[in-house]
């Protein structure tokens, strides 16, 4: 199995530690499902299906089945509970003392990006270079840079090079609709708000990037105009 791996370890003061070992196919950039058998009802494609979902034949939502084992651990936890998280990749580790909603958000972001949802495909190259707990500024630079690089590799006709990032804007608009659908789906199964709020935090960026592009990425302009 040619994979790259991430281990997310959540340490709590009172509760037991929670650990997820993610294996991501190096070529397809798809995460291996952590519990491939017996999916819950809420993971069915038709259960609160996203408004922009283009899948027809799948029985289950590809994002929901990958999130299922994570939601089963965090569905009854509060968003503002503190946790110490360590993310171990093949060659380094990153740790952070933060709220549960932020740390789960980082994990969900990686899992969503490496799931077989047609609206998260554009995020897969970024997932290959996953940056846990990235700031908005880091994510703006990463999202726009990765997009321009994908245009370089995938666009044979250089005249149609999308230098204004119009297609990226549209991708994030569609991602916002997916986030809304997922939050709606999760609300039907979770008891507390940590997991839903983790999606909400991811969605903040999905909503902000189109505006940021409209304003010529002014937040990060200073880095490139020295």
């Amino acid at each position: 199995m040619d994979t790259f791996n991430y281990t997310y370890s959540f340490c709590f003061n009172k509760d037991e530690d929670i650990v997820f070992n993610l294996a991501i196919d190096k070529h397809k950039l798809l995460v291996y499902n952590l519990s491939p058998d017996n999916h819950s009802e809420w993971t069915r494609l038709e259960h609160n299906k996203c408004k922009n979902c283009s899948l027809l034949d799948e029985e289950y939502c590809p994002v929901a089945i990958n999130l299922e084992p994570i939601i089963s651990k965090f569905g009854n936890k509060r968003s503002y509970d503190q946790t110490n998280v360590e993310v171990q990749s093949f060659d380094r580790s990153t740790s952070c003392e933060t709220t549960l909603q932020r740390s789960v958000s980082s994990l969900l972001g990686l899992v969503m990006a490496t799931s077989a949802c047609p609206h998260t495909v554009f995020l897969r190259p970024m997932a290959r270079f996953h940056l846990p707990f990235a700031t908005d500024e880091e994510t703006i630079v990463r999202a726009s840079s990765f997009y321009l690089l994908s245009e370089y590799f995938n666009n044979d006709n250089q005249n149609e090079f999308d230098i204004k990032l119009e297609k990226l804007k549209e991708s994030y608009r569609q991602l916002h609709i997916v986030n809304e659908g997922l939050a709606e789906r999760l609300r039907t199964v979770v008891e507390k708000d940590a997991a839903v709020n983790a999606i909400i935090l991811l969605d903040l960026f999905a909503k902000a990037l189109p505006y940021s592009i409209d304003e010529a990425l002014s937040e990060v302009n200073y880095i490139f105009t020295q």
Partner: protein
Amino acid sequence: MYRIMLVDDEPNILNALNRLFKREKDFEIEIFESAKEAIKRAQVTVFDLFLSDYRMPEMNGVKFLSEIRALQSESMRLILSGHTDLDALLGAINQAQIYRFVTKPWNDYDLISTVRSALEYRNILVENRRLADTVRDQAEELNKRKTALEKFQKAHPTLVAINWAEDGSIVLDDQLIRK
């Protein structure tokens, strides 16, 4: 200008809301990560609208907005929450008397529209109260004058008695005047 307070323990959400609301030229925004700090501020400054998260570490949104209601009853109060249960909804309606319960993730356009309609509703309430006060003041004034007139009529019945003819004209009776 409308003065609006935003309260959420998650700074990223607060910043995103702040960015969104600041695009509205007639909104003056103050943001708070702590509900306790927000209450302290509301004790000294009047706000038109409060938008609060529901689940917060110091106190939940219903408790926070109930305290705000006691301080500023004319304010509009809204809850913005990712996850809610029936208790939260009942508390929000019965205790905090909120205007709307908005779910996260929000749609920018819908959220601003909801806030605008809350502010319009508040304007109507304030205007209604002002008109009701005016009507009450005028009714009091009218009563005072009526009482004075009745006193005067009692004291001087002939001075204010008017003799109407059948066709609606006033009959000037010299004899009556002389009396």
